[in-house]
C-alpha cells in the first residue's frame, strides 16, 4: 500500500450503506419468495437508472414544489421552547405537506418509478392510513388503479383516512388475519404482489422491505434533512445539534437523519412507541424490546418469541404499530450512531395536548411520541443548543382515538 493511502483516516461513512446486495451491515437484504426476485432486481435496475436521469429528478423536484408544497417550513416553536426551558426547539413542518404527512414524498418518487417500469396497477399497505392516503393520491394523479391493504382493526381506528382513500378512488381491502394491523396488511400486500407480479408496482410506505426499498424510500425522504440543513443555515448560520423523530418503520426519521449521518456534531434521536410500557408485552419498540430476525423481505430487529414467531405490536398510534423497523435503523442502533428512546401511549397523549395548546398545532399521534421525548430531552440541554423535531404528520385523523382516550364521545 502506498504511504499516502495509509495516512488517510478510514472513518467509515454511515451514508455509504447499503452495499450492492442491499445489506446495511448484517441487516437488510432480499428475503422474498423466488417469484418476486426478478421483479425486485428490475425495480433496483430501474431505480439506479432513474436517479441518474436528470428528467426524473426534475419531475420529482417539480412535483415536490408545486404539488406537495415543499419546502416545508422550519418553524421556531417559541412558546414550547420557553415552556420547556432548554434547547431552542424547531419543528420541521412536514405535516403541512399535501395529504398531511411526509409519506407523500416517497409516494411521488415511487409512482414515477412505477410509470417508468410500465407498471399499470398500484398496491400498498397502510397502518395509520397516511401512507394509504398518499398512495391513493398519487395513483389518482397518475391515473392508475390502486388497492390499499389495511388491517381491519386499523380501519376501525382510522375511519377518516379510509374515507379519504375511497374518495381518491382507491379500493381499501380490509385484512382480517393475525393482529389485523400493519404487519398483516403487509403480508396481504405481498400476497397480492406475488399473484400480480406482471403488472403491479408495490409502493412500500417505509424504509423496510426487500432491497432496494429501504434505500429508495430513504432517498426519496431525504429531502427532509436536506431542507433542514439549508433552513437551519439560513436561520442560525450553523448545523443543528439534535434531531428527533418518531419511528415505526422509520421513514420520517431516516429522511431527517440521512443528510446528517456523517456530521459527528449532530446528535440523532429516534423515538419508538413504548405502548403501555417496555416492561409489558404491549409495545412496539422493536430495537429495545426485539431481537434480530427476518420478516417482510429484510433482516432487522423484530418483536418475536423464542420460536421466532412474530408477536403483536401495540401502540396508540396505528402508524407505529409494527413489530419491525427499517434495517438501516437496526444497523445505526448497533453502531450507536443514533440514540433510540421511547415514549408510552400516555406520554404521547400528554405531548399531543401540549402541542395543541402551546403551539396551536394538532399533531399526529406518531410525532406526538417524538414530542414526548423532546419534553424530556430539551430541558436537559442548554439554551444555545438547536433541536429539530420532525412534525411528520397532522392529527386530524387521530381526533377520534384521542377523544376515546380522553373519555369524550364525539
Amino acid at each position, binding site marked *: 500500500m502506498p504511504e499516502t493511502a495509509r495516512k488517510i483516516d478510514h472513518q467509515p461513512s454511515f451514508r455509504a450503506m447499503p452495499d450492492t446486495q442491499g445489506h446495511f451491515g448484517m441487516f437488510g*437484504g432480499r428475503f422474498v419468495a*423466488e*417469484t418476486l426476485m*426478478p421483479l425486485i432486481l428490475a425495480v433496483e435496475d430501474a431505480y439506479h437508472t432513474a436517479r441518474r436521469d436528470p428528467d426524473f429528478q426534475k419531475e420529482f423536484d417539480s412535483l415536490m414544489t408545486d404539488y406537495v408544497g415543499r419546502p416545508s417550513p422550519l418553524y421556531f416553536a417559541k412558546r414550547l421552547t420557553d415552556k420547556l426551558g432548554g434547547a431552542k426547539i424547531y419543528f420541521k413542518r412536514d405535516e403541512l405537506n399535501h395529504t398531511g404527512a411526509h409519506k407523500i414524498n416517497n409516494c411521488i418518487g415511487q409512482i414515477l418509478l412505477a410509470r417508468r417500469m410500465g407498471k399499470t396497477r398500484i398496491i400498498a399497505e397502510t397502518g395509520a392510513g397516511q401512507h394509504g392516503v398518499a398512495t391513493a393520491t398519487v395513483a389518482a394523479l397518475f391515473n392508475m388503479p390502486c388497492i390499499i391493504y389495511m388491517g381491519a382493526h386499523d380501519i376501525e381506528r382510522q375511519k377518516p383516512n379510509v374515507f379519504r382513500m375511497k374518495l381518491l378512488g382507491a379500493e381499501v381491502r380490509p385484512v382480517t388475519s393475525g393482529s389485523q394491523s400493519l404487519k398483516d396488511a403487509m403480508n396481504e400486500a405481498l400476497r397480492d404482489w406475488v*399473484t400480480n407480479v406482471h403488472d403491479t408496482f408495490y409502493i412500500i410506505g417505509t424504509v423496510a422491505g426487500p432491497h432496494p426499498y429501504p434505500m429508495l424510500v430513504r432517498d426519496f425522504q431525504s429531502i427532509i434533512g436536506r431542507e433542514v440543513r439549508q433552513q437551519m443555515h439560513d436561520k442560525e448560520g450553523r448545523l443543528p445539534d439534535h434531531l428527533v423523530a418518531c419511528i415505526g418503520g422509520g421513514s420520517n426519521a431516516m429522511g431527517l437523519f440521512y443528510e446528517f449521518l456523517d456530521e459527528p456534531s449532530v446528535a440523532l434521536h429516534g423515538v419508538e412507541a413504548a405502548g403501555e410500557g417496555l416492561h409489558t408485552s404491549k409495545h412496539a419498540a422493536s430495537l429495545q424490546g426485539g431481537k*434480530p430476525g427476518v420478516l417482510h423481505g429484510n433482516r432487522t430487529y423484530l418483536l418475536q418469541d423464542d420460536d421466532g414467531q412474530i408477536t403483536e405490536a401495540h401502540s396508540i398510534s396505528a402508524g407505529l404499530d409494527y413489530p419491525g423497523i427499517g434495517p438501516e435503523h437496526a444497523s445505526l442502533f448497533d453502531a450507536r450512531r443514533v440514540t433510540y428512546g421511547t415514549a408510552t401511549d400516555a406520554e404521547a397523549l400528554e405531548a399531543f395536548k401540549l402541542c395543541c395548546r402551546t403551539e396551536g398545532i394538532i399533531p399526529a399521534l406518531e410525532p406526538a411520541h417524538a414530542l414526548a421525548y423532546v419534553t424530556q430531552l430539551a430541558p436537559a440541554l442548554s439554551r444555545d443548543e438547536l433541536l429539530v423535531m420532525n412534525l411528520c404528520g397532522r392529527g386530524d385523523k387521530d381526533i377520534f382515538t384521542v377523544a376515546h382516550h380522553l373519555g369524550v364521545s364525539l
Partner: protein
Amino acid sequence: MSNPRIAARFAALKAANRLGLVTFITAGDPNYETCQEILLGLPAMGADIIELGMPFSDPMADGPAIQAASLRALSSGMNVARTLELVAELRTQNKTTPVVLMGYYNPIYRYGVQPFARDAAAAGVDGVIVVDLPPEEDAECREPLASVAIDFIRLVTPTTTPQRLQTIAAHASGFLYYVTLTGVTGTQDMAVDDTREALQRLRSQVKLPVAAGFGIKSAQQIAALQGAADAVVVGSAIVREIEKTLNTPKETANATLQFVKHLAGGLV
C-alpha cells in the same frame, strides 16, 4: 453432500417410470397427536415424499388454507423443536420416505442455523425449503445444511428467466421445486398446458429432478402432469381435508389419509 434418501427415491421413481407424489401437511395441524397419526400413515397411502410445513405466524407466500393450518398448529403449541420430534417419531418406523421441511426463515434463524442443521439431521430430515431465502441470501442456511447431507431445495417459478435459472441450478440439490403459478398456495388452479410446456423447458436445462407444486388439487390434475415432471406436490387440498373435519376430530386422520390415497390414484 447431497441427501441419499431423496436421491434414492427419485432413482426408484425413474426406474419405475412413475410420477412421484409429494404430500404437504403443516406440522402440528390440527394438533401434535393427529398430525403424527397422519404423518405415520402417509407412506402407506402413496406419499413418495413427505413435505412438512414448519408453522410461522406470518406465512406471506401462503393462501388462506395453509395460513389457517399454521395458526392451528401454533395455537396447539407447535414449535421448531416439536416439528423435529415429529420427524424423529416417523423415522422410528420409516427409514426410506424422504422428509422435506418447508417454511420461512425466521424460526430457523431464531433457533440458530447450526443447531437447526444438527438437530434436523439427527431427527432424520432430508431436505429443507425456505420460501423467503432466494439464492442471493441462502448461503448462510444452505451450507450448514449441506454439511449434514440435508438438501436445500430451491424454487423455480414462471418468472424465472433462463439466466436466473443458471444461478438457481448452480447450488441446488435434491430436486428443484417448480412453482406452477404466480401467486400464493392453494388459491388458483395451474394452467396445464403452460405448466407442461414450462416443465419441459426446465427439465431440458437442468439435471436435477423436478417436482411441480402450487395449484395442484386433484387426481385429474396429477394425471395431466404425467411425464412432464418427476413428482407433483399437493398441499392446500390435503390441508383442507383436515380443516373440513375440525368438528369431528376422530375422523380427521382417516379422512385425510383416504384423500391422499385417492390422489395417489392419479399417479398411475
